[in-house]
């Protein structure tokens, strides 16, 4: 694990005051007018009897890329999937605490989980396109939620999504060919386009580039950076450098707890917790 010595490139970041949290503390936003897109308070998450997340409190700011990092098994994916209740597909899971996503209380009984997922998009570790054409993959979510109903609108939406995902030029001539025939990197960008097609407000990405080669990874990272201005992005990554490159805010998880969260620059150059420092300097993986 290489040491992170360079500061993130200057990308003209708007320095939003960070929400630094410790496991026990309360989340604070220094700028009260900036309502966080997601606010999680005291989240405990269980797989059956096994506790996977312990008292996690974290705020995710709008239009930022927040990276969740930590070693294998630290709970970062569990946390991510808790945000759109994707963990519900696994039997025996249970959540305690408050997860407020946008204006919805995710785990309230009255919350329509379908409506939640409509507004929160997700991209998975391994690309999972449907065995349909490229066009049909993008159109699936649009049709499902009846976002656009006329044929022209649909075509336009599909094109817009593919452009947004930087895939349009590569596939515009073969929209009706099978999505499975695309390369791994293209499939993942297709999945991003598919998620974007229904115009979510938040985009969750679970190690989106871990199964890709370096070149494809770079394209995904550029894409994430570009998308930041329109979407709130939360990305799980086990790659420290990727977290440093791509995010403005980083949260470090370890053994189910949130150890530290703050501006990426500071987490990597001047972490406040010793555990964080050990992790970013590569003392343990």
């Amino acid at each position, binding site marked *: 694990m290489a040491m992170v010595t360079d500061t993130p490139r200057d990308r003209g970041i708007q320095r939003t005051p960070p929400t630094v949290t410790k496991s026990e503390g309360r989340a604070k936003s220094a700028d009260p007018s900036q309502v966080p897109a997601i606010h999680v308070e005291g989240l405990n998450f269980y797989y059956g009897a096994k506790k996977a997340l312990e008292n996690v409190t974290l705020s995710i700011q709008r239009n930022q890329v927040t990276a969740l990092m*930590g070693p*294998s*098994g*630290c*709970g*970062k*994916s*569990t*946390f991510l999937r808790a945000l*759109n209740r*994707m963990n519900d*597909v696994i*039997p025996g899971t249970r959540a305690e605490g408050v997860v407020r996503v946008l204006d919805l209380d995710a785990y309230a009984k009255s919350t329509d989980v*379908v*409506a939640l*997922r*409509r507004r929160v*998009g*997700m991209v*998975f*570790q*391994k*690309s*999972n*396109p*449907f*065995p*349909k054409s490229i066009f049909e993959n993008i159109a*699936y*979510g649009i049709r*499902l*939620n009846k976002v656009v109903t006329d044929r022209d609108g649909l075509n336009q939406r599909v094109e817009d999504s593919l452009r947004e995902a930087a895939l349009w030029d590569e596939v515009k001539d073969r929209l009706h060919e099978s999505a*499975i*025939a*695309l*390369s*791994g*990197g293209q*499939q993942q960008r297709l*999945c991003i386009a*598919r*998620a974007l097609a*229904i115009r979510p407000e938040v985009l969750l990405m679970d*190690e989106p580039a*871990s*199964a*890709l*080669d*370096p*070149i*494809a990874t770079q394209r995904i990272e550029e894409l994430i950076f570009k998308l930041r201005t329109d979407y709130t992005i939360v990305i*799980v990554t*086990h790659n420290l450098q990727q977290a440093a490159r791509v995010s403005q805010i980083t949260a470090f*998880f370890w053994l189910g707890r949130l150890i530290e969260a703050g501006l990426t620059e500071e987490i990597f150059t001047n972490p406040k917790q010793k555990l964080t420092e050990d992790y970013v300097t590569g003392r343990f993986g």
Partner: protein
Amino acid sequence: MPGTRLPFRLGGDLSFRIFTGFFALLLIVIVVAIGAELWRNSLLSIQKFGFNFWVTRIWDPVAGEFGALPFIWGTLYSAILALVLSTPVSLGIAIFLSEMAPGWARQPLVFLTELLAAIPSIVYGVWGAFVLAPWVRSLQVHMPDALRATPFFSGPPLGYGMLAAGLILSVMVIPYSASVAREVLKAVPLAQREAAYALGATRWEAIRAALFFARTGIVGAVMLGFGRALGETMAVTMVIGNSPQVSWSLNAPQYTMAAVIANEFTEAADDLYLNALVEIGLVLFAITLVINMCSRLLIMSMTRSRRPKAQDEAPVLPEPKAA
């Protein structure tokens, strides 16, 4: 093997292979032999009647006239009817058992549906003859006249007939297609359903995505049930009425290929009669062979190709454990 002069050793690897290979070959030979024997013993009929055998309606052994159209008709009609009735139920069961059933209920329910498959066909026949047929008859008796006028329900209410046969066949077919469909659904990767859920799908919509992914396998499962229905003998012959007529009516007693062989084989006095029956058996063999082959191909192709065919350009990095 050191110290051996012979090209093989008794009990050695080669003789083991030959020994077991012989039995493997035997099984293959048996299958081929079935086709060969059926062919051999139907030659008389094939030579005498040729293709006309299959388009002639008259089956009159006494007069030496053999036309097998009623049997093909009855077999196909009853099997298709069974298919139509059983497929929605089989799919519903497969979906319920693989997606919806609570954990504690799964095993007992699976056991119960498999029990349906374990009941001997003759028991279905006895129940069909003494319970189902009279019930069908009362259904037919109380049928509104408007329905009776249609070609599907014309004829006297006997109970025994195509409807009873279709009903009992559909019950017998359900466990087969349901269990194969369930296996097929289990082979759909969770990632497909997750993708649908992440886009805001309801439970049914996510299942639909899984069904779409598994569509070839599902078709294969249904075909398997169809093949089963084609070859079923005892239960059918006890409720279908065993009358060689071609009729659209569900009330009419009809005949299937398997049933006529079962009933008339021992009464076949002359060689031509026997050959005619064997020819029916030969065609039944061929049809079920083709259907079963196709269905297995479909099922195999689906369970094998569940991974995307595209490979990444560079070697895949080892996937980290899910956090």
